[in-house]
């Protein structure tokens, strides 16, 4: 009920969904790369820039005060949305990638030494691999990947064995895979990691748009996400960190805002969250992201999650009925992401021919090359990814378009 009704109700919030591409109505199934933004977000950002903008913090004038309160209000909204214990545990960053680099550099440089290990999984996005490789290389430490089973489920046995064998200092795992859709049991993983003495980071980039998040019940030390995949603006993301962890960490970037006092004799740093927020932040982006959270919460994360479950089931059954199509990633717990290959065909060809029919999908390795190598998928996959506004009809149209493309290529 609510499920099929959801897109009807909200599609009018997204003008782009009305447009055509190559003379065909757009079917936007590239939401895992970036979601479209509701008018509330676009207009909210516009309104802020047109009538309220000023630089924030330390400004004694009215506009500066207003902007500061709006921006800090957005921080509180994020904290509430993910059930953080304190608003100052939320650090604004320019995205998930920036947030993971912050932890890898600030925490990593102080906690990793020669011989140490960082445990990740083979399904991580490059953003949760390369920053660890970089800091590990500089410290003489090592990144160890946990195995992924053929159906796209994390190999829990291997996870627990690796915890035992390597005694990692950090366990960094993706909450939901952007390529497979797999939702990992992060509470369980964090508990086991903590038990084994490791710090934990959860990459929630693909979780935030799809279901409710509770960092206290997950029990992660660090949790990151990016706004543009969750109906928010580009250039913004956040790091949630356990207060005691963040307080003990050195700053990463230096500059204005993050200092208490600067002199050539010695500089002292500000309190949380400012210590980690050097320079003028993305003010309009922060405020607009707050509006994106409001928009999602007005619908209800459960309603969104339910709707996307219907979409995934529908896509699985429709697509796997197409001769020669194989779905990559069939974990029982998935977000709205469906990767596939078509036997003997290059995913780039398929993507191009879908584009010619107005269907926007992504093809290739989706910034998860190690996963592609693991599954032996040389030309990557074709990925359809869904949002609250996606309809089963769109999936049907994408499926027909795929069939046509396959016919043309054979």
């Amino acid at each position: 009920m609510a499920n099929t009704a959801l897109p009807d109700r909200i599609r009018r919030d997204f003008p782009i969904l009305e447009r055509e591409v190559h003379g065909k109505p757009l079917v936007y199934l590239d939401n895992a790369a970036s979601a479209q933004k509701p008018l509330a977000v676009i207009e909210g950002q516009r309104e802020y820039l047109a009538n309220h903008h000023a630089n924030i913090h330390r400004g004694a004038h009215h506009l500066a005060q207003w902007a500061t309160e709006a921006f800090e209000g957005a921080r509180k909204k994020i904290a509430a949305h993910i059930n953080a214990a304190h608003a100052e545990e939320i650090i604004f960053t320019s995205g998930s990638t920036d947030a993971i680099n912050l932890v890898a550099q600030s925490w990593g440089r102080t906690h990793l030494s020669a011989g140490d290990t960082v445990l990740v999984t083979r399904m991580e996005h490059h953003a949760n691999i390369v920053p660890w490789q970089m800091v590990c290389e500089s410290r003489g430490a090592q990144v160890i990947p946990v195995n992924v089973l053929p159906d796209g489920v994390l190999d829990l046995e291997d996870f627990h064995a690796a915890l035992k064998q390597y005694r990692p200092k950090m366990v960094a795992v993706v909450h939901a895979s952007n390529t497979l859709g797999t939702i990992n049991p992060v509470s369980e993983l964090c508990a086991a990691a903590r038990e084994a003495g490791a710090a934990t980071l959860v990459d929630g980039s693909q979780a935030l748009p799809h279901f409710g998040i509770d960092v206290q019940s997950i029990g992660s030390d660090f949790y990151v996400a990016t706004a543009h995949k969750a109906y928010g603006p580009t250039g913004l993301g956040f790091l949630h960190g356990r207060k005691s962890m963040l307080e003990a960490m050195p700053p990463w970037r230096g500059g204005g805002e993050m200092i208490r006092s600067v002199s050539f004799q010695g500089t002292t740093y500000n309190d949380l969250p400012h210590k980690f927020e050097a320079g003028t932040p993305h003010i309009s982006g922060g405020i607009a992201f707050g509006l994106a959270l409001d928009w999602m919460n007005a619908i209800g994360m459960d309603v969104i999650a339910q709707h996307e479950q219907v979409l995934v089931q529908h896509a699985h059954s429709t697509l796997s009925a197409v001769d020669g199509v194989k779905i990559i990633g069939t974990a029982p717990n998935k977000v709205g992401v469906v990767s596939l290959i078509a036997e003997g065909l290059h995913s780039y060809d398929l993507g191009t021919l879908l584009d010619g029919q107005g269907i926007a999908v992504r093809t290739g390795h989706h910034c998860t090359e190690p996963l592609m190598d693991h599954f032996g998928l040389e030309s990557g996959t074709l990925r359809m990814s869904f949002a609250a506004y996606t309809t089963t009809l769109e999936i049907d149209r994408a499926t027909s378009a795929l069939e046509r493309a396959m016919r043309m290529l054979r």
Partner: protein
Amino acid sequence: MSAALIQSRQAEIIEEFALFDDWMDKYEHLIELGKDIPAINVARKTEEHLIKGCQSKVWLAADEADDGTVLFTADSDAIITKGLVGLMVRVLSGAQARAIAEADLHFLDTIGLHQHLSPTRSNGLASMVQQMRLYAAALAARRA
């Protein structure tokens, strides 16, 4: 009884400010009020009594009377901040520690000076109020 005292003092200030609907008149009054602030002893204007992290400096001292009430003295190097500090002292000084710790301070809101209490404001008033409550809470706890 102390809570009632705090309430009635707030009401008094609200009435006083109701006379001004112009922003600048309010500030004019605030500047006047700053002159009557129960001044902190100069010898106590040290690091220890300084409220940190603000553009204008605020010094604050708290003393306990025999009857358990708390007496505040304060100062600031900025005149408007001094006026605001003066208002705070006027409302809270002489009340019971517990009443101070728990006081519902709405008067700045009502008189349209609420933004000065914002933690993002660089006058340090928010930190000062927090400090006043902390002093009071500590004293109340010691008595309990």
